[in-house]
């Protein structure tokens, strides 16, 4: 049954990672009886295996909650958001389906970089912010200091801040009341022509594509003929329903409501997130604003260890792409690694998740090359070439300008670490912008930094410098010219294209020396001596040698040993599984990632 628009509240919870977003969501479900304690699984909303393992939320999971307030039954739709910086675009998508957010802040950790970033996002979307301090049950809290931080950094009135505990259930009732009282109801008219925003979708093996919608205007009913406005494709609605939290069918969804639609859509490729659903017989004049597709930030080559599994890898990536439109893949060919794909990811975590999912779901063994960001080259003839792979860098003579992506990075750190962070950023070619004190003990430091210097390990460095208390967030500003070069690696005189990296000229020698040293440790001795060299163009800047093995022979061999030997050899061959033979050298998977760790 359709709920009156005035009785609907659509909201998200936004927070810095680990501030207890999922636990709070679970409490909402428990206290409203949406789920019983008996079927309660920890962090119910994180349903993907990998999410559960890592304790992070990647995908959005909506859930409809019924809550009675002063004798009136309200329908609250909670639209979960991911917590990791790699997935901030997904936060944006969730927010487009809401009228308000709970801004959750850890009562001990206080305002963190993503708290600020997410709060600004909510403000951009004109959402009502309901601030709340979480974990108030803890012994160690800094409530007064944090209220001051919230006021300083986000202009939040301390009197409006709720105090909750997702763990013990303190303040949950008050939070539900605040949602009803403070978050405005949706504004759409139920009798207008249908306009529903597709904000996500997933593929169910048994039921086909499940489209997640937020009805903005009008009403969608079972049996209705609908049209996806950007695609123009038409479908008949077979089932609609709500997530409570499992899929529960209903007769109709009207303006303001959130739910799912199934309409015999065969492939996720046919549904475009951000599209508008309308009624075929009574179409809306204009589609909703939709979303900007996120652009990949990090690229890596993914290669099957066994060359003949290229098509299997294509299929596996295709499947993943269906559920994750933010990741891209294009076939590429490496002299050393054969045929594979250049894949684009939102960040390092995203990259790791995709790799693990491919390996887990398809059983393929992969070689993953070191990640790189996208560069731009302005060529002498005025052409701008996008470089998502170091192999695409043209000869030095053809480069007018080499540009790299720059981000504005904000760090929130304890006062005593300000110096460390500034030193770190300077080493990473950062340009200082400003420092602001959130409180007498904590400050926001803002730098402009090359994305390449941020993306791999800056977060880990920050965490270790600040003993875990520092946080960061960043926004891409654009491309800026820099003195960059391609550093090549030669193994046994063969250039291994998959090991090439783009570095700043000033750091090239140092980087090259570390890299060849690291590679020497990763590559096993062979029957012959192997030289590992780093080069810029034709100039060799570093060299290491792996000496030849001297003795590897089993002396005796009788009749009975032949079978045994053959098994031994096939075992050895299996041990070389994660290796690629380039020229005549077996290069293990670890070597392709050596570039990542060459700083240590």
């Amino acid at each position: 049954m359709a709920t009156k628009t005035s009785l609907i509240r659509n909201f998200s919870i936004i927070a810095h990672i680990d501030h207890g977003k999922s636990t709070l969501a679970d409490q909402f479900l428990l206290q409203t009886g949406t789920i019983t304690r008996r079927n309660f699984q920890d962090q119910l909303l994180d349903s993907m295996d990998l999410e559960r393992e890592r304790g992070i939320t990647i995908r959005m999971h909506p859930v409809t909650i019924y809550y009675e307030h002063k004798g009136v039954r309200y329908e609250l739709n909670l639209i979960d958001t991911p917590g990791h910086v790699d997935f901030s675009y997904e936060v944006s998508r969730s927010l487009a389906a809401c009228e308000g957010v709970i801004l959750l802040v850890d009562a001990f950790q206080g305002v963190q970089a993503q708290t600020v970033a997410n709060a600004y996002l909510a403000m951009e979307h004109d959402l009502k912010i309901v601030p709340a301090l979480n974990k108030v049950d803890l012994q160690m809290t800094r409530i007064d200091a944090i209220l001051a931080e919230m006021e300083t950094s986000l202009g939040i009135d301390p009197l409006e801040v709720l105090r909750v505990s997702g763990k013990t259930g303190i303040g949950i009732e008050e939070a539900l009341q605040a949602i009803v009282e403070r978050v405005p109801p949706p504004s759409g008219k139920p009798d207008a022509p249908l306009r529903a925003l597709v904000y996500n979708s997933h593929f169910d093996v048994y039921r086909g594509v499940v489209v997640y919608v937020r009805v903005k205007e009008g009403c969608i009913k079972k049996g209705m003929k609908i049209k996806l406005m950007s695609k123009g494709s038409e479908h008949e609605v077979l089932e609609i329903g709500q997530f409570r939290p499992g899929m529960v069918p209903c007769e109709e969804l009207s303006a303001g409501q959130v739910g799912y639609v199934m309409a015999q859509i065969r492939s996720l490729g046919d549904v475009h997130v951000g599209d508008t659903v309308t009624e075929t017989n009574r179409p809306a004049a204009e589609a909703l604003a939709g979303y900007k597709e996120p652009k990949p930030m990090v690229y890596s080559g993914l290669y099957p260890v066994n060359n003949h599994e290229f098509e299997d890898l294509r299929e596996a990536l295709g499947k993943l792409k269906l559920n994750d439109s933010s990741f891209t893949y294009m076939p590429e060919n490496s002299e050393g690694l054969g045929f594979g794909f250049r894949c684009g990811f939102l960040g390092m975590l995203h990259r790791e998740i995709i790799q693990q999912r491919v390996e887990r779901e398809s059983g393929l063994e992969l070689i993953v090359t070191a990640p790189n960001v996208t560069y731009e080259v302005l060529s002498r003839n005025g052409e701008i070439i996008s470089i998502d792979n170091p192999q695409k860098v043209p000869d030095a003579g053809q480069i007018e300008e080499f540009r790299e992506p720059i981000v504005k990075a904000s760090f929130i750190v304890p006062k005593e670490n300000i110096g460390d962070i500034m030193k770190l950023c300077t080493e990473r070619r950062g340009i200082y912008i400003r420092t602001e004190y959130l409180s007498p003990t904590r400050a926001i430091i803002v730098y402009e930094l090359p994305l390449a210097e941020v993306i791999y390990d800056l977060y880990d460095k920050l965490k270790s410098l600040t003993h875990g208390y520092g946080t960061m967030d960043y926004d891409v500003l654009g491309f800026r010219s820099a003195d960059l070069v391609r550093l090549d690696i030669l193994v046994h005189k063969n250039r291994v294209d998959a090991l090439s990296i783009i570095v700043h000229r000033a750091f090239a020698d140092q980087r090259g020396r570390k890299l060849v040293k690291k590679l020497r440790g990763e590559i096993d001795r062979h029957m012959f001596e192997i030289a590992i060299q780093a080069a810029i163009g034709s100039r060799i800047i570093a060299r290491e040698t792996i000496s030849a093995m001297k003795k590897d022979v089993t002396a005796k061999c009788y009749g009975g040993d032949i079978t045994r030997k053959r098994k031994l050899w096939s075992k050895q061959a299996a041990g070389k599984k994660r290796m690629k033979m380039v020229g005549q050298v077996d290069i293990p998977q670890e070597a392709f990632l050596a570039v990542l760790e060459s700083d240590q």
Partner: protein
Amino acid sequence: MSIHTQQRPPWLEPRAAYIHVPFCAHHCGYCDFAVAVGKDDRMDAYLDALKSELQSLGTPRPVDTLFFGGGTPTYLPIRILERLLQLVRTWLPLNAGHEFAVEANPSRLDRAKVQLLADFGVNRLSLGAQSFQPGLLRILERDHAPDDVARVVEFVQPIIPNYSIDLIFGVPTQTLDQWQDDMRQAIALAPMHFATYGLTYEKGTRLWKQREKGDVRALDEETEYYFYTAAMDTLAANGFEHYEISNFARFGFQCRHNHTYWANHAHYGFGVGAARYVDGVRELNTRDFHAYIQRLQAGESPTFQSERLEPRDRAFETIAVQLRRAIGIERQQYFEQTGFALDSLVGGTIHDLCGHNLLADDGQNVHLTRSGKCVADAVMERLLRAN
């Protein structure tokens, strides 16, 4: 048509037979062959079982070579040894120009046994000297003294002049000087043949466990390399041809039986733990002494594992075993035996390995070079990877 009965090629039809005699006075710590210690009361029962296994041949099969290995074949008392010889000669009669080789332990060999062996046609004796250093013999848990070898050679030489001396190198604590001394002493005993084995730590042996626990330390690769090349140099300088990775012989005294294995030709195998390769099928008998006897008593097969290789797998296996020989792989012969042109399987890899001076190729034969022999396992693994 030939007037001879058409004989099938040697890679399908065996002309060699191996007989395993598991009995030993003592189980040495490094040994992982099927060995029976303290079961001397079961010798006749074992021979009964062996007889049943031989009877499964149906008719006697003439062979060119016979090999008794162990265990310690010469540990058998005269009466039982004679029974064994009679039994084997009945089912596996020897063709003219045969080779009949027996492994012997210097500790318990006497003239009467050697004479008995010779009377039954044994014309090659392999003496397990292993070392002439008392300390190393103790580590290897051998039960003979260094002098035993010379004592035995004295009465063996007139009866069976073709004898080989087995030596082991790479024994924990062994020095290069000790190894040179072992070879010097062995050469002085004027054998026709040497088998030099690099000590291997076989999983499950006592020696392996000692190494795992840290009670003994394996020699490093560099030292083993010097031992192996020292063997090549010293033995070659004394007129022994390095005809297989671990075997050296005077001209005309290569072990023909072992050549069967290295050619990847067919062979019979009888006894506990024995391997055979007949009609393209590789089989291993059970290594369990009691099970071997029981199964044959019950009229069952002692086969524990049987495997027929696909032609391509067989061709790759042939590459690996034939490369152990100094003559290596002869292309035409290889094609006849396997049905594959060598270069169609591993031509590129051969070319690469020749470039590193690990293989030598004269267009007909491909063989390991000196440095190739030192890393033969890696070379073979590389070649087999093309499969």
